[in-house]
């Protein structure tokens, strides 16, 4: 077998080279993952926090239901649900671009996992932390904002790192609804050029590189947030 890397310099039929195409596809992958990450973190922290509000059983039940629903349906099926089924039922969603629908699907799916981590992080804190905050006259909301959540965030950063890397990898399911991201590129370019091995290798390397970037970004965040002496130092990733 011989390598034919010059396949990346050939025209794909629309005036761009396969090299330009794969870079654009990489941009889509990173874009989908980044937008979904923002949704997943926001909802994940909100739902995870609400699940610890044991004074309000209804809120806890709703939070648990959120986690169970989005965790127990395969991500690919959720993508189909957002892309095909919901726009059929709610016709106004038909104008929404596919990108938005996939980002919501990935964001909600990942939010359930993050909510689980957030809840575990909050429950891992000594009860005294929250009580001390209340005793100092903070309102429950303030005690979460200034005491409990900042501590919990630092505890859950390592699992949050692997969830973020999972999100990046899961973004590959967007191929199923024709988002032009890396996996879609891999499938189409493989068919057009029949140089599958070169194409797949390049895509695989870009995924690995992206996962590594996410890992380093989260590690930097961890260092940035570290309080000397507060928590035994935790190294990110793997």
């Amino acid at each position, binding site marked *: 077998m011989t390598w034919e890397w010059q396949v990346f310099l050939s025209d794909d039929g629309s005036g761009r080279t396969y090299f330009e195409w794969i870079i654009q596809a990489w941009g889509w992958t990173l874009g989908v993952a980044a937008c979904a990450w923002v949704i997943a973190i926001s909802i994940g922290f909100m739902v995870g926090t609400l699940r610890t509000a044991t004074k309000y059983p209804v809120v806890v039940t709703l939070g648990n239901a959120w986690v169970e629903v989005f965790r127990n349906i395969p991500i690919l*099926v959720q993508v189909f*649900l957002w892309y*095909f089924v919901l726009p059929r039922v709610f016709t106004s969603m038909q104008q929404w671009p596919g990108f938005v629908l996939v980002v919501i699907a990935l964001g909600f799916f990942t939010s359930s996992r993050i909510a689980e981590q957030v809840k575990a992080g909050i429950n891992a804190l000594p009860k005294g932390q929250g009580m001390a905050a209340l005793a100092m006259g903070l309102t429950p909301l303030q005690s979460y904002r200034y005491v409990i959540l900042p501590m919990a965030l630092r505890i859950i950063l390592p699992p949050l790192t692997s969830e973020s890397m999972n999100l990046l*990898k899961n973004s590959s399911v967007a191929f199923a609804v024709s988002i032009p991201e890396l996996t879609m590129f891999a499938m189409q370019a493989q068919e057009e050029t029949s140089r599958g091995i070169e194409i797949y290798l390049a895509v695989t390397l870009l995924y690995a590189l992206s996962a590594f970037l996410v890992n380093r970004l989260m590690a930097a965040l961890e260092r940035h947030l570290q309080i000397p002496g507060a928590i035994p130092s935790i190294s990110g990733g793997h």
Partner: protein
Amino acid sequence: MGELDLSFFSYDIISKFVLKGLYFSTELTIGSTIGGVILGTVLALMRLSGTKTLSWIAVIYVNGMRSIPLVMVILWFFLLMPTLIGHSIGAETSAFITFIAFEAAFFSEIMRAGIQSISKGQVMAAQALGMTYAQNMQLVVLPQAFRNMLPVLMTQTIVLFQDTSLVYAIGAYDLLKGFVTAGKIYGRPEEAYLLATVVYFVICFSLSSWVKRLQAKISIIR
């Protein structure tokens, strides 16, 4: 608001399209759990063996598999298998090999944690009794490691079951494909997706509730 018409769904569809897919998804889940745990245990033992070369091979394999999306792994095997073994194999066989190879990386991390959870004293006591490495692993370490990790292994199996839907990428006939095919033939694709969602949820939710109960039971015994 658009209307969904679920009336097309009948026993006929279940027996013609869905059951075949469910059978394959289940078979793939069970087969690759067993294969994955065996290969994963070997990888974990390699990693903990203390021999540099063996442990490096295991580290590279596990971390490599874990840093690329499963869909890409599925595509890779589907592309390479015919070249490697000389003749083309179906999407289903390719899926089996892929899932065993991919999930082994995840099971190996679980088994490694399980093996490391066994106290050193156990291993030393077995050595003091004159057991060989193989006897030590087979009779003392692995049974306990396996039992300690049972809930985690089960949870991973549920994740695996969800992941089987990704064989969509190579067109293998799994549970999701069963619904998609039925939806296409009856001209009701959206309804079919909705039904697939419900079925996957019911299966995964029941299984994970069962694992939760199992976990509570095991933690009482300890």
